Structure formats: structure tokens, C-alpha cells
């Protein structure tokens, strides 16, 4: 039988979840060249709401956390292809004459547009986790800068040894990026406006547009995409940038390695230092060993043995 048993109710665990969720912040930015265009994003994902269930199969279930982007700035830079007026061929009895076209743009023209997609994408996060006990030793346990900052914000003391109980995700259910059609329209509109501003505002403007077909057609040609820009955007985030996998990895590390739901100092302070009748009595601490954590449908139970007291 264990020497020490600590039971944490589901309500307390839920409160802990609130604190943990409030401190969740996934930040990422990337930029890459995809041949004819360059794309980049800069985003910050936060969590809100959600509920916690303790289950008698020894798991903790976090359900329906809203994952929302504080910002999700998406930037697209497109090299405008060589466009020209005139040109073509003339057939004469002596042969065919090729006319050189008159180039519209000089230099290495490019158009860049940035749109904030944050209001248009939302995800839901659920996960099933098992309690995981880790011993933290300030001298040997590596801890990332992001976790250090979080620990400082949450008053988790990284200067002393502790036993820490994490909710280690076994399965993570996170929605893929799925932009609505309206996002495709928004993006197309922003890009069209950007191109439009680059063109001279005289008859040449309408002639260029007539030569291109439309800016939307040009955009699709440059990006080599079919009709559905929103689907293209979703694939870009999910696959090309791999943001989806980055988030999954971040969630796994955040809950499984970074933020513990419960921690016990080791050695555990049984009695603080006191002074009685002018005599100072030193604090009494006990080493903890053989920790276990189990979950029932009402509480998280942590047990430990008391080691040799020196």
C-alpha cells in the first residue's frame, strides 16, 4: 500500500485545464519558394473553451477546445510573367515574319499581397491523454525556452526537483485547414486590387487586362491551380507548409512535455521550518518514490512511497 495518496477531483482538473488552455499559444511563421511564386505565413493559434472528462479507462479526455488564430497573415508573391502587346506572325509568299512583341513591364516585376486569414479559419481540438509521470531535475532535464516562459507565467518552479504529472496525448483530433469559398473570393479580390494598383490608369490599363484575360485568370495560371482557390490555400497550409503537422506536434509536446497538470516537490516538504519557544526546528522533507497516477471517472489519483529519510 502506498505511503501517500493524493486525489485531485475532476473539478480541480477542469480548473487546471482552464489555466493551461489560457497559456496555450502556437506561433509559427514560414516562407518558401514554389517556383513561379513565393508564399509565406505568420500566425498565432490560441485555444478557448473546451471541457475535461476523467474516464475510468485511465484516460483524460479534453473535448471541443476552440482553436482560433489571433492572426494568420498569408503573403503571396508572384513573379509576373513577360507580357507583351503586338507581336505575332505575318505570312508572305517569301516566308513567315515573326514580329517582336512590345514588352509591358521592365525589370523583374513581381506583385505581393498579404491578407489576414485569421477570421476565416477555425479548428476544433480534442484529445485523449494518459497520465504520464516524469521526474524533473533542474540539473539534467532539458526544457525549451517556450516552456520556460510558460512555467514562469504559471509559477511553476523550475529550480527544484519535482515529480510532474502530464496529460500525455494518445490521440489528437484536430481539424485540417478548410477555407470556405468566401476566402478564395476574398483572396482573389485582394490580389486583383494589388495588381490593379500596379497598372497605369489610362487606356493601357484596360488593354493589359484584356490581354491577360483577367487578373483572376492570371493568378490561376501563375499558381497553376484550378478554379478552387480556397482548396489550393487549404492544401498549401495542410501539406506544403505542413502547418497541420506542426500544430499536432506542438499540442503533443505542450500537454505531454511542457505543461504538467500536477506537480510535487521532491523531496516533499512535510513540515516547514518553525521556531518553538526560541528553538528553531528545521523543515522536514521526505523523498518520494514509486509514483503512480491513475484516473477514474471522478478523480485523478497520485500515489507515492516515502523513501529513506536522511
Amino acid at each position, binding site marked *: 500500500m502506498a505511503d501517500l495518496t493524493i486525489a485531485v477531483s475532476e473539478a480541480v482538473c477542469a480548473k487546471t485545464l482552464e489555466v493551461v488552455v489560457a497559456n496555450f499559444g502556437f506561433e509559427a511563421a514560414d516562407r518558401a519558394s514554389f517556383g513561379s511564386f513565393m508564399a509565406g505565413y505568420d500566425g498565432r493559434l490560441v485555444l478557448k473553451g473546451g471541457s475535461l472528462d476523467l474516464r475510468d479507462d485511465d484516460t483524460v479526455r479534453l473535448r471541443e477546445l476552440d482553436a482560433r488564430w489571433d492572426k494568420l497573415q498569408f503573403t503571396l508573391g508572384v513573379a509576373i510573367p513577360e507580357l507583351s*502587346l503586338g507581336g505575332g506572325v505575318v505570312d508572305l509568299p517569301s516566308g513567315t515574319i515573326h514580329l517582336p512583341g512590345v514588352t509591358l513591364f521592365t525589370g523583374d516585376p513581381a506583385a505581393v499581397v498579404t491578407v489576414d486569414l485569421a477570421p476565416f479559419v477555425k479548428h476544433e481540438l480534442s484529445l485523449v491523454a494518459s497520465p504520464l509521470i516524469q521526474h524533473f531535475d533542474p540539473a539534467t532535464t532539458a526544457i525549451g525556452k517556450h516552456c520556460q516562459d510558460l512555467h514562469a507565467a504559471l509559477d511553476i518552479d523550475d529550480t527544484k526537483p519535482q515529480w510532474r504529472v502530464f496529460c500525455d496525448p494518445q490521440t489528437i483530433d484536430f481539424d485540417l485547414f478548410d477555407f470556405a469559398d468566401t476566402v478564395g473570393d476574398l483572396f482573389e479580390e485582394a490580389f486583383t486590387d494589388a495588381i490593379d494598383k500596379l497598372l497605369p490608369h489610362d487606356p493601357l490599363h*484596360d488593354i493589359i487586362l484584356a490581354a491577360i484575360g483577367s487578373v483572376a485568370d492570371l493568378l490561376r495560371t501563375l499558381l497553376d491551380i484550378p478554379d478552387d482557390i480556397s482548396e489550393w490555400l487549404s492544401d498549401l497550409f495542410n501539406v506544403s507548409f505542413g502547418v497541420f503537422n506542426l500544430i499536432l506536434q506542438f499540442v503533443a509536446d505542450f500537454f505531454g512535455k511542457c505543461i504538467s497538470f500536477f506537480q510535487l516537490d521532491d523531496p516533499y516538504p512535510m513540515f516547514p521550518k518553525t521556531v518553538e519557544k526560541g528553538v528553531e526546528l528545521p523543515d522536514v522533507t521526505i523523498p518520494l518514490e514509486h509514483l503512480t497516477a491513475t484516473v477514474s471517472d471522478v478523480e485523478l489519483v497520485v500515489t507515492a512511497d516515502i523513501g529513506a529519510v536522511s
Partner: protein
Amino acid sequence: MNELRSEVAINRALLTNPALDSGAIAVRGTVFHVFGEAGDHDVTILRDGRVAGRFTVAVQPEGAVPQVNVDLAGLAADADRSGNITAQYAVREGGVMGFHADQGIGRYAVVISHTAGGGSRTVLDSRGQLPAGDLFAVTLITPGTYRATNLTTQARLPITVAMPGRGEPYRPARPTLVRAGDHGFDPAAAHILAGQSIVLLAETPARFLVEPAPSDL
């Protein structure tokens, strides 16, 4: 493209609408010379009356390409101090060399001499007349009415340039050929869409000037 930026510079020469003269090649105008005889031809490029470059074209009975287009603005920039250009050109006998300026405000002329038997004979001086068989192509961008004049015969060709209709198929690279002979232009009038080209074929020696019609000036 290594960085994200927004930079589009319009070819400034497209924003103006000056007269286009076969004797002073500028952006939107191209002179095509047909090489009728095999042998070396010395080509001198003049910019605003001063020699801007020289090179030789080898005209070969067979084996060479039928056409070479030369950007005079780019070529003049590549010439050394004495105006010599290191590029080598070869064109098939009966082939064509097109002289155009891709950008800038320079006005160019081309003088071509056929060198044979120790002598030299001028076959083209674009400041004067284009020989029969040569062509002058112009791309007209601003909608309106224009007038092409063969300064040799004083024949005139009215040209109407219309805006492409919205939603209608539009291809800038669809030139219209007009022949210029002793009896004027054939056809007698031309209609194109803005951004398309008119190609004037000199059936007899000709000097062409294409300009906005007086009412459109």
C-alpha cells in the same frame, strides 16, 4: 524571386503616343530587312544620328535561320567604345532581320552594306527609303484614328484602333498586313484592336510614317 516585394515598372514608352517613322526606329516600331543576296553584310546602328554599334551578318545560301530579331536598345548597350558588337549573326539567303527597340526613348536607324569583291554597296539606309520587299511594323496602343503615310508616294492609309470589347476574344499577337505600292495602300483602310500591330509591306521603295490623325492629336 528571392524575396517578397512589389515592383512593377511599366515600359514608359508605352505611355506616350508619338509618330512612328521607319526612318527613326523607336519602341513600337520595327523595320524588317530582307537579305536577297548571300555574302557578308556590314550593319551599322545609329542612335539619334550617332553610331551606336556595328556588326556583320553572314547571309548564307542554306543552313542558317530564316529570321533574326535584334533589340537595338539592348544591342547599343552591349557595344564597346568603338561601337563594335561582338555578337555574330547569320541569316539564310532570302531571310529577314528585324530591327526594333524594346524600351527607352532612343530613335535608331540602320545602314546595311553588302560587301563583295572588295567593294561595298548599301542595300538599306533606313533614314531614307526601305527597299522593295522590306517591311515596317507598328504596334498601336492608344485607341483612336491614325494615318499611315508613304512619304515616297504621299499615299495615305487611315487606321482605326478600337478598344477590345469586354468579354470578347482578344489576342494582341494578331497583326494586319497592308501592302504599299505605286497605287497606294492595299487595303485602303485598316481596323485593328488596341495593342495589335499593322505591318506595312513596301512593294516599291517607301518611307513610312504612322501618326495619330490630326483630329486625335
